[in-house]
């Protein structure tokens, strides 16, 4: 009994210390991610690495119920495959709440928010994912797409630059960037991909006539047309 009390005491103390700091840490993490974006856009390799290390050393949240989180994650992935975005969103939110250290949950959450055009929330979720794992290329790529939709050229460039920097297979990432630079209909992301290739002195060809949107507002007649979707096929790097 005494031993049990002995174990519980430090846990309680840790929780009490960590709780008030969570919001502050989250803000700090976002600041560091923005730093990484700006440093990458400025081709400041050392800066990116230093900030990445700071992020990696920052305290990470403790999983509450990883088993439940895993189940929610699987439910979310299944819903996403069926294009049931609201159900996927709910599942990924639950995964994130029950295991705030689960990078995958926040990455998927960012993806679903982006698909739902809830861009501010998508950005926030992806920043959480990157705070947990600052070298996760897929999350950087998603973030670049969010900034592309927000027409934030500088941040789209920085996020794409980090996508390339942390890509497991740089040649594949390079080809994805070329694909976007040549085939993406949305100017911001296309120009950011071209700028990223040039930043890393990789061969790139600027398009003369930019690609037209594949679906310029075409929708069933009883549904108001949604935002124009780009046609570049953008697999994750």
């Amino acid at each position: 009994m005494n031993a049990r009390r002995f174990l519980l005491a430090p846990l309680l103390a840790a929780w009490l210390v960590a709780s008030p700091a969570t919001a502050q840490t989250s803000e700090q993490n976002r600041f560091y991610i923005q730093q990484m974006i700006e440093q990458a856009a400025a081709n400041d390799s050392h800066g990116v690495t230093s900030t990445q290390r700071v992020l990696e050393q920052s305290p990470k949240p403790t999983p509450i119920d990883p088993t439940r989180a895993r189940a929610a994650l699987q439910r979310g992935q299944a819903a996403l495959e069926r294009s049931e975005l609201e159900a996927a969103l709910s599942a990924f939110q639950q995964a994130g709440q029950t295991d705030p250290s689960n990078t995958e949950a926040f990455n998927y959450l960012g993806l679903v928010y982006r698909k739902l055009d809830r861009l501010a929330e998508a950005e926030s979720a992806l920043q959480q994912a990157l705070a947990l794992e600052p070298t996760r290329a897929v999350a950087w790529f998603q973030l670049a797409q969010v900034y592309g939709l927000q027409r934030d050229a500088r941040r789209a460039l920085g996020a794409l630059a980090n996508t390339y920097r942390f890509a497991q297979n740089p040649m594949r990432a390079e080809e994805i960037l070329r694909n976007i630079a040549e085939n993406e209909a949305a100017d911001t992301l296309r120009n950011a991909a071209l700028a990223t290739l040039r930043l890393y002195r990789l061969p790139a060809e600027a398009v003369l006539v930019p690609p037209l949107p594949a679906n310029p507002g075409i929708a069933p007649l009883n549904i108001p047309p949604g935002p124009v979707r780009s046609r570049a096929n953008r697999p994750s790097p």
Partner: protein
Amino acid sequence: MKPRLATLALAMLLASTRLTGAAGQYETIDYYVQQMIVQGDANDAAGVETFREQLENLGRPEAGDPVKARPFQQQGLEQLTRDSPKEALAAFRQAFIADPANPEIAGQLGQTYLRLRRFKEAERLSVYALSLAPTQSATWLVLGEVYGQTGDPLRAGGALANAYRFAKDPPQLAEQLRQLAAANSPEALRTGAQKALQLGPSAANLKPPLPPTAAPATDPDPSPQAGIPAPAGTPAAEKTAGTSSVLGALRRRLETLANPAEVPAPAAESSLAQAPSTDDPGQRIYRRSIPLTCLIVTFRNGKTDNLGSGLLVSADGLVITNNHVIDKADNLAVRCGERESAASVRKRSKEPDLALLATSLKRGESFVLNETYNQGLIGRDVFVIGNPYGLEGTFSTGVISGLREIDGVRYIQISAPISPGNSGGPVILRDGTVIGIAAMGLKMGQNLNFAIASAEVIASGLFDPARMMSRPLGRDQ
């Protein structure tokens, strides 16, 4: 023997020093590939083998999704057969993105870049493909051609020597090298191929047996052009010549660009020639007009701003559109048929709403403006091509509904539907001549649309009508 070992040891030391630095993945594999080229050029079989082993000992990229990649790869090969390298590039890219660990796909992507004369990309993809399969002869051949095309005879020679060294069918490879060494190749490529031919027999003799398990991938196709068919329509002799047939096709295309009068048939018309003949006037007009109808994209502050339509009106690339299409543009780009060009404004006027653009799209023909403007036009069929809302090449039909003069400008009222993006496009009669330039519509009402009469375009002095070049609208054109 000892000095050679010492050189190798030094190279290995340098290599390991380099690897401990901040060199990226590509720089590392490029280093080994370049070493293999140097050793190949020096006909040093042991040196080639040493660096081949080094390459094979590097970490492999994570396996991709071969099931997803296969249909794209197949599509790429089909597009190459149709001599459509741009479409092949799109397909091979998707295949590569799906499965970047497949050396054949990486090599095919590299070769497609070579066909598009994008040499830097071709080099990078080939080097990468060689890191996956250092004995893939086809990729060495592509790399040798890249260096030959970019004026580097030494590296061309080394890479081609390695192509010969690793060829599954040395006599066939020798034949390909002889074709590359022919007088019509660039000098560096010729020199490199000759050097490889000189080294060839000894290189082939020195070729050591490949360890059965060490090689990560072997050349699955004995043909150095593994899986890449020659473009359709090339002579049979060139089909067997592999890469030289590609070069031959490229060369022919360059020659025709330099001398448009000898253009056998541009891409859009080639497909036309293969299509079954038809009496349908709409189809005839569409096929004839689509390569002469242009998409106009404007840029402002570095971003896409507006798009519209236009029409080629001279053999030297003059394009007419509406002034309101290009009004606020910083820069302009134009695509007519398959070809693209930057454009500059030659002349413009607010009334009538017209602009003349200069492009580099030189063709043997253009639209012809029809100066007729009288009541006899009413009721005649018209055909409209344009890019409404970016739906490129949209074709619609209607009739001439009336003749109107608005603010002193003569218009033709048409019932053919037009939308934003059609502005500046041609309104065409059954004989293929252009009777007007689509300009505006009445928002209230239905199909009440207006085109600036061609008579007005000619009267405006925007350009010299004598520059128009056309051929008669025949039955199957």
